[in-house]
């Protein structure tokens, strides 16, 4: 292999690697949880209107009440959200936001966007609520299995 072809092949390989990284960046899928629950940022409370219509990336708008959550699957880091206050005012906000590449599930706060909160508070990492130590269903199952496992009383 000549030095020239070695350079050409190395360049092609590097180009492919760079293209792969770029495709990973622009194609990474995220789950967005669009949330209308009130939030407190820097001591100030932001609450949503009674009913809002929310659309992500120009998709079909979804009507949401207070303290509701809806889910959307998106790909790539840059997105557009359109929020329209249905109950009074008729305020319509269209904003763009960025999701970090390695954030799989992101929480998008509608009140923060509507209320003009600092941009870094619009999208936060979703943290699933901690599971209870012994959920009610599990306890019930345990009770049933205890009953089934108990040997029948044998009279001599």
């Amino acid at each position, binding site marked *: 292999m000549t030095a020239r072809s070695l350079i050409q092949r190395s360049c092609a390989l590097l180009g492919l690697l760079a293209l792969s990284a770029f*495709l990973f960046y622009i194609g990474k899928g995220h789950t967005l949880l669009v949330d209308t629950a009130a939030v407190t940022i820097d001591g100030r409370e932001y609450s949503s209107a009674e009913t809002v219509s929310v659309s992500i990336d120009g998709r079909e708008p979804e009507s949401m009440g207070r303290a509701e959550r809806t889910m959307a699957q998106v790909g790539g880091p840059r997105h557009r959200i359109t929020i329209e206050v249905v109950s009074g005012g008729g305020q319509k906000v269209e904003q763009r936001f960025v999701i970090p590449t390695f954030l799989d599930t992101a929480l998008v706060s509608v009140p923060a966007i509507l209320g003009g909160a600092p941009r870094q508070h619009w999208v936060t990492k979703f943290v699933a609520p901690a599971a209870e130590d012994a959920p009610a269903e599990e306890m019930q199952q345990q009770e049933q299995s205890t009953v089934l496992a108990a040997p029948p009383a044998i009279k001599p």
Partner: protein
Amino acid sequence: MSSRLRVFFIDNAVAILILLLIAFALPVAKLPASFLIQEILMRLGRDTFLVLALLLPIMAGMGLNFGMVLGAMAGQLGLIFISDWGIVGIPGLLLAMIISLPISVVLGWMCGMIMNRAKGREMVTGFILAFFMNGIYMMIVLYAMGSIIPIINPELLLSRGYGIRNVVGLDGVRQAFDNLIPLHVAGLKIPVFSYLIIAAGAALLIWFRSTKLGQDMRAVGQDRGVSASAGIPVERTRILAIMISTVLAGIGQIIFLQNLGTINTTSSHEQIGMFSIAALLIGGASVTKASIPNVIIGVILFHLLFLVSPMAGKNLIGSGMLGEYFRQFVSYGVIALALVLYEWKRVTRENDARATLRGGGAA
């Protein structure tokens, strides 16, 4: 005239047989024309690229590349990785193609090396090689993934903690190519972008034929000895033909699976070689000669028969399963018939040549 007619019938025996079967099954199936056209349009976008992958080895005189299954495995591995990393849409499919590329190249190189050691028996070698590689693929997918190869998404893994589940949903990339340029004509959905990819692949093959390497492949396909005497690196050319075919098969499998929207991890790749080869032969190709029109005609006829046969079976004997058996019968039968005809023609040609040399004219 009768001799020319005989030659025509012998050359196109497979296509004529399939046309007769379709002519018989079509009125019995009683399927609406709109349904048939829509299905053919979709299947044309789904399968044509895979069949295109078979053309180069035929040009290089290596017959029907049963080893294309290796490329299909590479394509599936690419799709499994992008599903694990959660890459969606067109970038996901392109990334799957890039991932499949080095795997296809290595597998193609290995396949070409082995075929060079089994000259004249490339088809059966490729067939058995596909079985052998299937075992290694299974080992990678069912044992290495999740244990040696990290898999982030636990939904992809079997409940034991390693190995990929039997079915992997491609929700993020489902029909991403097909829906990129939406076009509806008279209520029919046309996958324009998939057609554009196929057209690009076909144009690339036409251009490739006129290149130095393409001419070398044609020369090697016609006569290995003469090509070697002319200074063409015969073995290298044959390896390159198989490598390109394997890479194209990997891309074709990705196009195929994005349309289906799901991977059957352990079996999606297995029948690809058989069905693609059967489609090409139905289109009028032979072991030594194939063209792009053969590919398109073959995919249309093959899938038309696939579509009408279950319904025809149901209407005839009350069981749709007849059609399912018929599909297998047609795929394997067509390949067997084509191989028998090829061998018979070769023997006839040799006998004719011998008779001509003896001065007795054509037998």
